[in-house]
């Protein structure tokens, strides 16, 4: 299918309710056809930001650009390029076909074409032939599929999804997440996706913006932000370890040797010798071995001696915090590993991870920050060595 998406950019968005600043975003950009997830806890201003970007609410200040053209809150032709679905499906009274027809009628699509479009849209969300069912007979997951069909049938250039899966149980959520993701990619719509669930964000989005109290605390490519969050709060929110600080001591052939408190960590990237950098690794990329185990050489180039300082349950896994000479890192291991290896605070282990799993960026106060290689954000708070 041809590319539908338009580039969505915003500058200086501000919105307050009374004295409370709900949104205060300097700048963001989503390239045509890409997916941005807005991630954050309740009350962070995610939904308000989405409403502003979707021209549904008027910001107190700031401008939104569609393919470089500034568009205003009342710009009807710009709004015709957009569509949205929310956490509650907000279906209108009537049949499924009535609902999916709503936007098409507003666009004066002739009725024969309309019927065809509705039928195709329903087939794509897995509700083929459901046109004449009443909306009150639908389950939560089915209603959410209708809401997506109602937005998607308009072939919007920018699609806004506000926690579309948050009210569903895990089975329905799993089924819908993969369908939503497939449809967004097939149509190459530019998509803005609000969620408080980092798993959903990672599954669906190319880029992340993490919000807290209306402000952006991290922006960038999904795996960069997940691997190396810019601060402690974001790290905690994303379930990542805090960044470690070190100095590049070897550099060449895209491989970096970084000295962190006397231990050397290998990473992939193009920084110069002597530069001070921040380093992060996702807990799920860190394997633990017994302290004295003789680990044969493998592609997992990094081995750090570490002592366990905390073990806590994290659903079906355990989240283990380790102290190395360079600082704290985390690992996620299964229940059985914890029991078999006797992983408890105080135990000595070896933490093993690959060089490619390590994210690196310049430490603050170390010259100007570099721009990301992918560079979709004009204001990149987080960036990594790329891949």
């Amino acid at each position, binding site marked *: 299918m041809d590319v539908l998406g338009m580039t969505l950019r915003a500058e200086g968005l501000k919105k307050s309710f009374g004295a409370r600043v709900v949104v205060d975003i300097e700048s963001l950009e989503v390239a045509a056809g890409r997916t941005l997830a807005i991630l954050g806890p309740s009350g962070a201003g995610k939904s308000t930001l989405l409403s502003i970007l979707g021209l549904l609410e008027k910001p107190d200040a700031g401008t939104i650009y569609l393919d470089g053209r500034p568009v205003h809150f009342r710009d009807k032709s710009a709004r015709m390029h*957009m569509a949205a679905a*929310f956490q509650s499906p907000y279906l209108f009274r009537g049949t499924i076909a009535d609902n999916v027809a*709503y*936007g098409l009628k*507003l666009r004066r699509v002739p009725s024969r074409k309309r019927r065809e479009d509705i039928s195709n849209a329903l087939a794509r969300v897995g509700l083929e032939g459901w046109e004449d069912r009443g909306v009150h007979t639908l389950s939560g997951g089915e209603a959410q599929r209708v809401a997506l069909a109602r*937005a998607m049938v308009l072939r919007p250039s920018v699609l806004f999804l506000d926690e579309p899966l948050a009210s569903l149980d895990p089975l329905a959520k799993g089924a819908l997440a993969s369908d939503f993701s497939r449809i967004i990619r097939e149509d190459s719509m530019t998509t803005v996706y609000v969620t408080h669930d980092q798993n959903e964000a990672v599954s669906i989005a190319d880029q992340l913006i993490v919000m807290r109290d209306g402000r952006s605390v991290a922006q960038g490519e999904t795996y960069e932000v997940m691997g190396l969050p810019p601060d402690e709060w974001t790290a905690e929110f994303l379930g990542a370890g805090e960044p470690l600080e070190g100095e590049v001591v070897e550099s060449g052939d895209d491989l970096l040797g970084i000295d962190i408190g006397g231990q050397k960590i290998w990473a992939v990237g193009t920084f110069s010798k002597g530069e001070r950098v921040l380093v992060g690794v996702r807990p799920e990329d860190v394997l633990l071995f017994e302290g004295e185990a003789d680990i044969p050489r493998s592609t997992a180039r990094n081995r750090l001696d570490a002592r366990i300082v905390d073990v806590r349950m994290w659903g079906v896994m355990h989240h283990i915090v380790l102290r190395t000479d360079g600082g704290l890192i985390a690992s996620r291991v299964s229940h059985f590993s914890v029991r078999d290896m006797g992983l408890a605070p105080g135990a000595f282990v070896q933490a093993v991870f690959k060089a490619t799993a390590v994210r690196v960026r310049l430490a603050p106060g170390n010259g100007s920050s570099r721009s990301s290689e992918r560079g979709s954000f004009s204001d990149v708070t987080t960036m990594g060595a790329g891949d």
Partner: protein
Amino acid sequence: MQVFTESIGQATRLLFEGSGGIWPVILTTLEVAFFSTLAGFVLGVPMGFLMGATRFRGRNIFIAVTNTFMAVPPVVIGLLVMMVLSRQGPLGSFGLLYTVDAMVIAQTLISTPIIAGLTAAAVGTVPRKLRLQARSLGASRFQEALLVIREARLGVLAAVAGGLGAVIRGVGAVLIVGGNIEGETRVLTTAIVQESRRGDFAKALALCVILLVIALALNAFITWYQHYSERSENA
């Protein structure tokens, strides 16, 4: 109980006689009810939408005025309309006092705030995000408003029925501005007051039966429509 059995017998005869002063009374009642409810609908539904589903400067004052109007006793409205329409009043030259038109004007002042207030409550239950949803699909402000009223249509219908019910049931305003003139401005409620004060229970009861049939039929229709509507949606 004798008074009841006797009166019911007489009332039945009166009803089926077809003659007498009953038919003009019924027609006048329906005429006043229809036009004052129609006017209340045209004025009250948009007012209710503005109050219940929008935010504008002065909205709270608007709501307070409507609530106040709902609290004004019908006899007060009757008196004020009478004074306006009386020969010395500002509109005295139209000679409307003691006419059906005067009754329609007074009853419209009663039905409009009721319809507006109940419509506001009904559209207020439609989630604001449903309007954002419509907007996100390309609806204009006017199309949004139509959708909201359509979503709240059971409540809006109940609001109109509430206005109509108040107009049919009420006696205070029409008694004052209509004057209960036989063959001209006598309606069911004023006739019942007159006949019962004269002690003609049979005639009063006959009129009551007709009034009750109208009032309860309206009530039954609303109840049926709500059930029907809910059931057909869940089918």
